[in-house]
């Protein structure tokens, strides 16, 4: 073993002996050894560290909640849109008159059918969300 390793081992053993000793020392003796000012100083450090750690944990939790909410909103919106598209296609398939009007509009080039469809799907998704909010309320 090199001299550096021997020195490091000595310090480690000394540190372990200190821990062992401090844990075994009776309450009254350890308080007397550290003194009331030392105890107060340690309490202040405990309080400050705990407060700082709490603030950091709270900030982290807020950040995670905001990220979760943002992810949920995006997911809900995407689900609304897909469900509205399904409903729209069902309406078109069971309502020949409506379907015919859509096709005529496209043929007359009054409006882009895709844009019409997207607008209707958006409106349907909004209506669905409003219905769900009413139900919840």
């Amino acid at each position: 073993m090199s001299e550096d390793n021997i020195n490091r081992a000595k310090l480690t053993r000394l540190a372990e002996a200190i821990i062992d000793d401090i844990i075994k020392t009776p309450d009254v003796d350890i308080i007397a050894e550290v003194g009331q000012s030392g105890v107060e100083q340690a309490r202040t450090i405990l309080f400050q560290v705990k407060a700082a750690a709490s603030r950091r944990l709270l900030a982290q939790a807020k950040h995670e909640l905001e990220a979760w909410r943002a992810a949920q909103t995006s997911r809900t919106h995407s689900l609304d849109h897909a469900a509205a598209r399904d409903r729209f296609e069902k309406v078109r398939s069971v309502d020949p008159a409506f379907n015919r009007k859509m096709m005529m509009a496209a043929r007359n080039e009054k409006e882009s059918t895709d844009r019409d469809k997207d607008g209707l799907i958006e409106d349907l998704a909004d209506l669905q969300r409003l219905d769900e909010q009413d139900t919840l309320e």
Partner: protein
Amino acid sequence: MQIEGDETHSPSDDDARLPVADVFDLVDAISESDTARLMAAARGFSRLCGIDADDLLQEALTRALEGRRTCGRGTALVPFICGIMKSFVSQENEARKEGLRPTVVVRNGEPIVPEVPSDGPSPERATISAIDERVVLAEIDAGASGDEKLQLLIEGIYDGMRGAELREFLGVDEKGLATIRTRLRRLLKDTCANEFAP
């Protein structure tokens, strides 16, 4: 004695680990005597690792409360925090992390930086560490000179002796050993005070 305060553990160990919320509870419920023990340990370790006692206690608590160090369920707060402070003394892991940096090799006058940093303490760090340890040990030896029992205690600890073996080596009973150990802590506290004196 089992010293707690591991920095790394596998996710499967999570159930056996003390959650951070429980560490907060332990800090809330700490007694006056255990508060004194933490300060006594910080003072004892301070000189061994060259960090001011208050800073040492603060850093150890921060690591525990941020979950950077964990311990097994059922571990008391004092051995847990002491274990963290002890890790500052042995510093092998810390040195490996902090000293991890690319080593510049000069070839034909041009510096060449390897893509992968060397996995070990930097040469500067290793040199500083070795010097510090020698200085600390020399100061402890010097401080104990003239106190034969204290010198024997230190030698015994260096040789890995504990409890009954130490008592036999020193020729004292439990109370006598406690008295000499108190002198050792006082010695460390005094050398620490000299080290950090303004």
